[in-house]
């Protein structure tokens, strides 16, 4: 059984233009289906507005999806009541993009990392303090710094604090939405290495939402490419990057500037005629699907 199974997940936003205008529908996420096995790093890629972030939030029900199914360890997440949802969120945690706005500036680091334990009523005060020190150690921060405030840390260190908080409840799935895109190049590498280390150490499964294709290629085992709210291609990292079939995937991959002055720059223009809107994914190779 897959750890996470997403079926036909859809999020529709309705908007009325003017007071008497016609209501229009935007399908931010449109019948998205994928599943993630235990221990995988699954990449969800695409450009702004493609629906990748909304998909991540719908899985955790930070945004309520319009329809579809989300099964986590076989349990239907969308059917859970508030209480059961909170319990299930122990096992699914989120790491956000912006390490500057995702940490409460008025809380000390120890309070930030301890908070999930308090909410779920875990341990005594002393036990929690010991756990906070342990968690800070896991993410490479000196536990001596636990009484400081977020502004006293650099971007990379703040992202480590966010990770320590996400790890507090021993989750099995971490949804990381652009976890390093706000960081400097040299710091990105540190945080990516940390994510890889933590995965091995705590048997974590990642859903990595990112626009940086070089990063996704580096760390993901499988990748899904989103365009206009739909998954247009999905497969092993190797299949998608080496044998892209969908016109959008090809254009996207060709646009990534390679850090090599002699690399040929053949940027493919997106051939919109080659995109069949609403086309369903079909298997075009072993474990490789495309909406063609």
């Amino acid at each position, binding site marked *: 059984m897959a750890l996470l199974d997403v079926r036909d997940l859809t999020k529709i936003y309705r908007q009325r233009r003017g007071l008497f205008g016609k209501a229009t529908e935007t399908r931010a996420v449109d019948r998205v289906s994928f599943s993630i096995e235990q221990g995988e790093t699954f990449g969800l890629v695409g*450009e702004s507005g493609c629906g990748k972030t909304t998909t991540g939030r719908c899985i955790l029900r930070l945004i309520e999806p319009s329809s579809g199914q989300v099964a986590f360890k076989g349990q239907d997440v969308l059917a859970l009541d508030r209480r059961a949802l909170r319990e299930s969120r122990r096992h699914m945690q989120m790491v956000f993009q912006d390490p500057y706005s995702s940490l409460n500036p008025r809380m000390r680091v120890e309070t930030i990392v301890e908070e999930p334990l308090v909410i779920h009523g875990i341990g005594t005060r002393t036990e929690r303090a010991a756990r906070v020190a342990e968690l800070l150690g896991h993410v490479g921060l000196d536990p001596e710094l636990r009484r400081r405030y977020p502004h006293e840390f650099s971007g990379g260190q703040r992202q480590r604090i966010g990770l320590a908080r996400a790890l507090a409840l021993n989750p099995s799935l971490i949804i990381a939405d652009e976890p390093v895109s706000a960081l400097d*190049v040299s*710091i*990105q*590498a540190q945080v990516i290495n940390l994510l890889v280390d933590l995965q091995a150490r705590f048997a974590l499964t990642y859903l990595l939402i990112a626009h940086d294709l070089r990063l996704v290629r*580096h760390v993901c085992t499988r990748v899904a490419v989103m365009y206009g709210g739909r998954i247009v291609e999905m497969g092993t990292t190797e299949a998608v990057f080496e044998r892209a079939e969908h016109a959008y995937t090809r254009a996207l991959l060709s*646009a990534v*500037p390679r850090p090599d002055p*002699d690399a040929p720059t053949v940027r493919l223009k*997106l051939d919109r005629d080659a995109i069949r809107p609403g086309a369903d994914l079909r298997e075009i190779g072993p474990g490789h699907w495309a909406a063609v």
Partner: protein
Amino acid sequence: MPPMALLDVDRLTTAFPIEGLVVPAVSGVSFTLNAGETLALVGESGCGKSLTALSILRLVDPPGRIVSGAVRLDGRDLLTLEEREMRAIRGRQIGLVLQEPMTALNPVYTVGSQIAEALEVHGLARGKAARARAIELLEAVRVPEPQRRVDEYPHQLSGGLRQRALIAAALACQPKLLIADEPTTALDVTIQGQILDLLRDLKARFGLALLLITHDLGVVAQTADRVAVMYAGRIVEEAPVRTLFRDPKHPYTRGLLASLPGQHGTRLRAIEGTVPRLGHIPAGCAFAPRCPSRFEPCGDLPALVPGTEGGQPVRCFLHHRVRETAATTVAIAG
């Protein structure tokens, strides 16, 4: 004597007061840029690359201020000009494109009127002529339907089109030099490619010199002729783009290139530690605390001079035949 460079930045130092001290955030930065050439200033946040650009245009906000050096455009030192004379340079001779296409355009004016404004301020065209020129410029930066777009407001344009409109405004007075500070960072990768192609094309068509400020080494590799790498306010290495990527000398440049994601499943070679904050920049070589190759001389500040095997200027004792510190070079120059 070599022909005079279009832009000659000479030992530029810009500083901020911190706790009663004058702390340089750009420290003795020198480079030249010729017509038709692209120089990339590369580095991480806080390295001084954007402040260098603002210093060239004399747009540094107080309490920051340019302490010393010269910025020569066609041989004329901009730092000695009256503010009134400087206003005639900005936009007219040097165009500026910033990262955020939403905040750089005024939301209450149409795109066309903002392009026309540049022409009117510099007395190059007004009224109908300015509007016609704005349409031409939108066409030159390949905005589709320029006749219609010219009357639209910034919020009606996509991010990519806004950035094109900004480039059109920056080019309105046909400047010789365009400074682009992270021009594609806020854009999606497919749009980024189009903007980079456009900049390259404009450079060829108008013989424009481009000072490109970026942290993205992929963008550098695809766009620049020469590259200057900055760290903690100083240039640490400068080289033609191929040399920099094939044979980087400074441990920081090497570290940056090695930390890029590449082969699947391999461990990234991260640079240890963090970028020093202003006011906490170490004496001597600022990179030494993070440098895997640091040795005893690194407590002194190395000069930016060609290494032992010749080649590009590099600010690192590993590559110097004798220990050429910055202080001795200054003494010779003085």
